[in-house]
């Protein structure tokens, strides 16, 4: 057992970070804030070239042949700089769809739970080539369906909360798509959840780092504000949240990757492997969502009035954290799920 990153994993992390710094820094991305098409083609190509979309595709099929453990590292790095666009869905779909592994953007959409009154909001409607529709959570059997972009009917949302996440309201009834035969909806959903949680850990981490840097430099009352305990303790708690969430996300990724680990752990807890998988995935996303949202709030608070300005990017972290926490289960829904599994 060695739950630290391997050298290969560290190299991957460094490599992705370098690619993002070069092509998709937050400063670069902010140039496309609020656009219906937030995806910078050059940045997207850099992700493709770095192997992000082929990450989960076997080497025999021309991919990188890695697992979710590596996937969450990549997602985390993307979260740190708030990479815009349907990147997580395209990554998650790559093992299933040839087009996605070639970097052709795809969206992933959960059918609302029965009785839900919220509108069907699809992300990046103008940027995706097709939309994969997941059946509701309570249906683990039905396979996902694929709807071509041309068949989608949606109205653009005028003021999306997150300027990096344009939205459309899907018109009902949703078009009937093509069933993706042989694809497990639960597996796809879990993959998307873990990647989302990884992105959230990146957000949570970036918030701690940037707020810490600000607290070291900003002076009030003749000293750096980071020398006040009130600020120190806000940031210490934030670090605890991101580190705890990171542990949960890494463990969830490894548990999904490695059946030996899953079997042994399920055995220890006295549950089935399926139950264990849902438990660790849902638990990881609860903590990652909480860490991202709360750390972003903390980062705004530490920045004081400046944190409340549009110019300082802290609000973008908070808004994206909100977007991601509303996908594939909110914290309440996931807590219900975990409770139902024990």
């Amino acid at each position, binding site marked *: 057992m060695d739950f630290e990153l391997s050298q290969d994993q560290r190299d991957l992390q460094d490599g992705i970070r370098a690619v993002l710094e070069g092509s998709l820094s937050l400063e670069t991305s902010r140039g496309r804030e609020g656009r219906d098409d937030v995806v910078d083609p050059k940045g997207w190509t850099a992700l493709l070239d770095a192997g992000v979309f082929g990450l989960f595709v076997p080497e025999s099929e021309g991919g990188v042949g890695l697992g979710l453990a590596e996937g969450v590292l990549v997602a985390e790095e993307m979260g740190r700089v708030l990479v815009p666009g349907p990147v997580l869905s395209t990554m998650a779909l790559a093992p299933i769809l040839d087009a996605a592994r070639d970097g052709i953007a795809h969206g992933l959409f959960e059918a609302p739970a029965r009785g839900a*009154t919220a509108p069907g*909001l699809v992300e990046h409607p103008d940027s995706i080539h097709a939309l994969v529709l997941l059946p509701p959570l309570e249906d683990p059997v039905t396979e996902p369906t694929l709807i071509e972009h041309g068949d989608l009917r949606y109205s653009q949302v005028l003021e999306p*909360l997150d300027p990096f996440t344009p*939205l459309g309201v899907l018109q009902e009834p949703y078009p009937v798509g093509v069933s993706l035969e042989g694809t497990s909806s639960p597996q796809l959903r879990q993959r998307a959840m873990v990647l989302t949680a990884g992105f959230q850990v990146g957000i949570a981490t970036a918030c701690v780092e940037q707020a810490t840097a600000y607290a070291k430099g900003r002076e009030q009352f003749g000293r750096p504000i980071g020398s*006040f305990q009130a600020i120190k303790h806000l940031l210490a708690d934030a670090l605890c949240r991101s580190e705890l969430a990171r542990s949960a996300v890494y463990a969830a990724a490894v548990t999904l990757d490695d059946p030996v680990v899953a079997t042994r752990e399920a055995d220890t807890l006295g549950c089935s492997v399926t139950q264990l998988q849902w438990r660790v995935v849902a638990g990881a996303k609860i903590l990652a969502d909480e860490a991202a949202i709360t750390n972003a709030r903390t980062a705004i608070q530490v920045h*004081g*009035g400046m944190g*409340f*300005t549009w110019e300082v990017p802290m609000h973008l972290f908070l808004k994206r954290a909100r977007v991601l926490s509303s996908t594939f289960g*909110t914290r309440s829904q996931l807590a219900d799920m975990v409770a139902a599994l024990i």
Partner: protein
Amino acid sequence: MDLRYSDEEEQFRSELRTWLSGVLPNLPPKPSSTDWPGRRAYDAQWQRLLFDAGYAGVDWPVEGGGRGASPIEQLIFKEECERVGAPYVGTGFVGLLHAGPTIIAEGTQAQRETYLAPILRGDDVWCQGFSEPSSGSDLASLRTKAVRDGDEYVINGSKIWTSHAEVADYCELLVRTGPDDSRHKGITWLIMPMKSPGIEIRPLKTIAGSTEFAELFLDDVRVPVANRVGDENDGWRVTMVTLSFERGTGFVGELLESMRILRSLTEFAKRNGSWGDPSIRRRVGTLTASFDALWALTKRNVSEAARNGVPGVGGVVFKLSFSEQGQALSELAMDLLDRAGLSASGLNGGDGLGDLPNAEYVDAWMKSISLTIAAGTSQVQRNIVAERVLGLPKEPK
């Protein structure tokens, strides 16, 4: 411990109600939040109506041209206006609540004659130039420099968080006239006409996407020495005097607004089915209790102000508590909206019961983030409670 209103107070309320019910239906529609000239005109019209009815400067002393109402009457005034959705003070905010009272207390006779009446009538709009990019919580470190040149001060520097700057006629400005390190002892309070050359106004976008605030850049702006309120280098005391006008009614509008939102949220929860979830109901129940308590605390604060002139401990307790509860309310709203909270514009909920209230709630959520920051961060407020109320020792420097 008497919560009954006296006959005089009831009469004040009843006359106000009658007047409001007559005047409100005839108001024009509210301008859009980005139409600054429209907002100024709308607010000025409302202020003129108040003026003509004798309600302008309800909290101002009679010698300043106000109504000189008691703190209890001020509370009634704010409560009644809020309950019927009367216009807010809007662009008149700084003039009526801050600059005017300061000039009454500390201005010269000539200044009073020049500036007070136009504020009360709604003719003049004021803005505030206190905070600076490098002086937020620590206002006494402000750097905007004023150098005496004959009968004028020549001012250079910048200000931030200035509301309504685009349409303001005057700015209440704090400048450094003492040495760089003079802190509280080297600050002067000036009236700066906004048409003075050298003022650049740059709108400051908030995370809610709105531009309620602006930055001011001052480049050799000349202000007559006659526009100084109080002595040179005595501006900190002048500013503190203004704070002492608070009668415990400062947040009445925000509190009643929060209570209204909580009621509408409850209705929304009942419509969309989440009322069936006890944890949602309990959050609503607990928030209701907290807002009721804040309303009771407001009455304690106002009563103390009526007795002793100032609201005492309760003011900062209110600010800290309300900031938390206001954020808890908006988090509840976002949780209830779920995915609908991802848009700040209207969305159809598809529940057959009309539009979702998402635009209003999402906007309120973003604004609520500033509750623990604006007008003194909660961290600074807690220090104030600990040191001034509980008497705990100051930190070493």
